[in-house]
């Protein structure tokens, strides 16, 4: 990590970039937060470890409008989002200096906390750390395997290649070991009643905090459909559960064909709703109906929803 900080310091000092978007140490061992570093001194708080799951590509929207270049640290999966943002004219490629940071999967603090109360510090989560992470709690120390603490999304990782970068820092390790659409298939196999019950149960937890919308790199509209009075979809209070269903269907549909499956929505949801299940359903359908498509892989590629072929399948057909 020090290598990365040194490199960033150099970039700032020689004027290549005017600022750095990265992660800053949090008040706990496991909650670093996205941050814009303006000076070389401030980089002493820079951190890059297993808890830096946040996708920083969206921050480049505002940074693109600032004077000078901005260095931005992007994990392999974040680069897909960045490409998608280029496609939608939301970021300016020339204004970004992309450091493709390596990744060996990111950690789910909830998994670590399970059975480990009173955590005081966690170590060994850096990119070059060991296969185990060391947890110190007020009840004693413990080692758990890095792999067991991974976020669910890392088990279905798209790959560790950076789609776009100016330079790459650090070695990545492959983490994909599960079927990407297994969860979706499980739901598809349910009866309508079961499906409905499943989603009602999940979505009833929603408190409409908008965290999913705010973190989503595809939800980059300054003012979005939910702010728009023309559909009466704005300001939906969480009075009854139907609105959560609507909110999440609309949101998922709005990012269909643009969602890179970065999984941030599920990661940030305070209620732990598996929101990626919506997005992934669209991705699965798009792959099946219109051929494999990975948003953000190629910034030139036409999105499946603004494209067509004469022989597309008819609605209602199931491939």
């Amino acid at each position, binding site marked *: 990590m020090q290598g990365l900080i040194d490199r960033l310091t150099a970039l700032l000092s020689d004027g290549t970039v005017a600022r750095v978007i990265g992660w800053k140490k949090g008040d706990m061992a496991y909650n670093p937060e996205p941050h814009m570093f303006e000076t070389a001194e401030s980089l002493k708080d820079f951190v890059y470890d297993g808890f830096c799951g946040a996708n920083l590509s969206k921050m480049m929207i505002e940074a693109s409008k600032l004077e000078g270049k901005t260095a931005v640290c992007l994990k392999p999966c974040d680069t897909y989002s960045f490409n998608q943002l280029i496609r939608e004219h*939301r970021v300016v490629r020339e204004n970004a200096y992309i450091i493709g940071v390596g990744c060996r999967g990111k950690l789910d603090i909830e998994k670590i906390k399970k059975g480990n109360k009173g955590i005081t510090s966690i170590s060994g989560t850096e990119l070059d750390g060991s296969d185990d992470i060391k947890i110190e709690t007020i009840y004693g120390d413990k080692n758990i395997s890095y792999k067991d603490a991974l976020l669910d999304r890392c088990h279905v990782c798209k790959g560790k290649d950076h789609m776009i970068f100016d330079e790459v820092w650090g070695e990545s390790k492959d983490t994909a070991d599960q079927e990407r659409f297994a969860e979706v298939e499980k739901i598809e196999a349910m009866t309508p009643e079961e499906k409905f019950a499943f989603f009602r149960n999940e979505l009833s937890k929603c408190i409409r905090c908008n965290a999913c919308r705010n973190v989503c790199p595809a939800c980059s509209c300054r003012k*979005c459909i939910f702010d728009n009075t*023309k559909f009466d979809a704005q300001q939906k209070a969480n009075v009854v559960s139907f609105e959560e269903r609507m909110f999440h269907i609309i949101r998922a549909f709005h990012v269909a064909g643009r969602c890179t499956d970065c999984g941030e929505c599920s990661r940030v949801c305070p209620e732990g709703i598996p929101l990626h299940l919506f997005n992934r359903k669209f991705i699965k359908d798009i792959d099946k109906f219109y051929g494999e498509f990975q948003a953000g892989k190629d910034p030139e590629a036409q999105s499946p929803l603004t494209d067509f072929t004469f022989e597309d399948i008819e609605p209602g057909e199931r491939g």
Partner: protein
Amino acid sequence: MQRIGVFVCHCGTNIAATVDVKKVVELVRFEPGVVFADDYMYMCSEAGQEKIIAAIKEHDLTGLVICSCSPRMHEKTFRACAEKAGLNPYMVEVANIREQCSWIHKDREEATEKAVILARAAIAKVNLNTPLQEGESPVTKRALIIGGGIAGIQTALDIADAGYEVDIVEREPSIGGRMSQFDKTFPTLDCASCILTPKMVEVNQHPNITLYTYSEVEGVSGYVGNFDVKIRKKARSVDMSACTGCGECQAKCPLGKMGKIPSEFDRGLRTRPAIYMPFAQAVPAVPVIDRENCTYFKTGKCGVCAKICPSKAVNYEQEDEIVTVKYGAIVVATGFDIINLDKFGEYAYNESPDVITSIELERLMNASGPTGGHLERMSDHKQPKDIVFIQCVGSRCDDEKGKPYCSKVCCMYTAKHAMLIKDHWPDTNITVFYIDVRTPGKNFDEFYRRAVEQYHVNYVKGQVGKVIPQPDGSLLVQGVDLLDNKQIMKKTDMVVLAAAVEPNKGVRKIATMLTASIDNNDFLTEAHAKLRPVESPTAGIFLSGMAQGPKDIPETVSQAGAAAVKVVGLLAKDKLKTNPCTAKCDPMFCNGCSTCANVCPYGAITYEDQQVRGPGVNETRRVAVVNNALCQGCGACTSACPSGAMDLQGFSNRQITTEVDSICR
């Protein structure tokens, strides 16, 4: 708040028989915004319209809902009526309570209830209507004809004679099209060139007509009255202004004697040199160099044509030239060709040179054709004594091998061929295998009957299953006579196939450029099958000839004239009214993501940096801008827009949402 008047029409008993009109009036009277409601026997009648006008004035109405027949029927009428009373015509909505209610429901209570709901939806919509202004756009007084066959020629002449400038773009080196390949024309047997050549010359000399031969349309942008068309003038390698058309170059081209390049015009029945005019009467009478075959272009050696040209017109350095021209109207007259017969192996077309298509027969019988008009077999140059004609080869065919439609012209030209052959060589034995003989048309059936009664052509109802080339050079035809219920095995000298016609290749590309709709068979679609047969649904695009569907020469010429009148009607206007129901972008919500431009079929959306100010927003950013003149109001952008910034005037998001709401109330 709007002040809405609701007018419920009885339409005699058409509506009133199943819908309780009075009840509808009573029930909608208290809808939000409604200040007046009334019914009348015939709302569209003069008295009915007077009633509406009076009510507008008396009650100071700002919006109208007419519950009557389909808006497709009388929306225009009622809009004009509103305008007469000083109301913006787009403040009128029609609730369709006839076609979509009274005529399909029997139960009076049910129908009345539905009529009320439909009226409510319309009222809710009018509450959100805003006055819309029709824009105006100027008209470029020049027309483009794509295709220089008889259809294009006739359309061009008619428009030019009316005093407007016309350009013809023709892909081939000469105009004339299919008709110039024909020998005689049915049903009067005039010689095709005798009637076509004068027209070709007229086109060439007409002060209002410009010819772009050996040229193709490369791109079209713009809209009715204001098209910008990119035309690629392919390099002829011959200077048009210098060439005198003496023909020396063709005669001296070394490739001409080698007989390697099949002549497209003669359907491969003879060969041509690399520098050539397709046929003697070509217009313009200027040859082109076929660069793919020319020795000079392939090896850099030869150059004979340039050396011997007396007027030094040959120019190997010439390059393709692209010109952009403005037009007010475009006519598609791209014509037809016949289908490829590779999939019909049973007829041995690719095996035997004596199995030919009807167009090839035209060339064989043409005095300027490869045999000088002497009918002979291509294999041994003997005159055939026995000829079999097979009808419907690929026409009326259900599978992908052929075409599902009737080609319309084959029955007549086959009768023509049979008679012409019998006329010249009366001892020729002719058999025609047919499924049906279709001869609707003036003097058409009489024509066909003459072939049977006067010329004793043997018409057999039935089809041929197989043509088998024999070692002795003859052809064995296996067919059936359905009326006799007997299978026929007969030896013949020549088989002529009436291959199905199909729209010219490349018409789909042109249709896409023009955003003109096209059907599954690649025929261009008309705006209305019966009432607007020469117009495309896309404004400013007109149809002429086979591009729209199978038709013979008389029909083509009449359609060409009809298309010309429509074009002239358009060009005669100084200004055009534009549809005000166009898309509109709300910059506050637009984020410039380009999704809308990706789905816009008209290229009507561009982006510019705009200062956006509003609650919590003050920045300069990329936002979409709609060109109202280009936008046709399809609304594709509105449903693609992620943030709901795009909206369609007249069918706005809020209007449709409120319609949904009032239906689901």
